[in-house]
């Protein structure tokens, strides 16, 4: 039973398109995150949500819009995709309050043509 699941696993699309990545966790956690891993494998936080409230927006372009319909879901919508958006996007979750172990999904590999 997958704890943090992301869909799709792979996303290949053209520059300028709009796409969404979905994330769901069944761990009962209150806090969810999006991280981006670039081509050099460097992982960096993009957003974190606690109880559906945005806590961190780490200077991510406005083209990226997270949406948390409930505590178990955190989706990422990206408008007007650019070549530089090609990366692996990881969703994660943890219990609320910070400083709790974070559990990661398997990642979504986004390739922009």
């Amino acid at each position: 039973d997958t704890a943090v699941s992301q869909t799709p696993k792979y996303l290949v699309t053209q520059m300028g398109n709009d796409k969404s990545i979905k994330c769901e966790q069944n761990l009962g956690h209150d806090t969810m995150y999006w991280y981006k891993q670039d081509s050099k494998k460097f992982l960096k936080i993009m957003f974190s949500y606690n109880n559906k409230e945005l806590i961190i927006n780490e200077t991510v372009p406005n083209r990226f819009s997270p949406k948390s319909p409930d505590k178990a879901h955190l989706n990422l919508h990206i408008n007007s995709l650019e070549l530089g958006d090609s990366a692996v996007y990881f969703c994660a979750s943890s219990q609320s309050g910070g400083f709790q172990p974070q559990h990661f999904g398997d990642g979504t590999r986004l390739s922009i043509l």
Partner: protein
Amino acid sequence: GIQVEQSPPDLILQEGANSTLRCNFSDSVNNLQWFHQNPWGQLINLFYIPSGTKQNGRLSATTVATERYSLLYISSSQTTDSGVYFCAVERNSGGSNYKLTFGKGTLLTVNP
């Protein structure tokens, strides 16, 4: 922000060898995790270890929070241990932080 440095950046071992990976961080932390990113890209939780020592099979980890470093020990390495090992920390900033800051990782290759 907090700096996280991992060493060595690359490590090549023969199967059966032991190794130690190091993670230094520049400020006090309330969360430290070690991850293994396997060749399929999955990030596997190895340890949640803000302080002290833990063991899980052939792997063990020690964090000395007062000296701002953590060590990951891999004993009797196997080819399946290959991949990138990341250290990630969450800094105690006194307020809501809710993010892990990752090191650049150690690329481990275990040859048969």
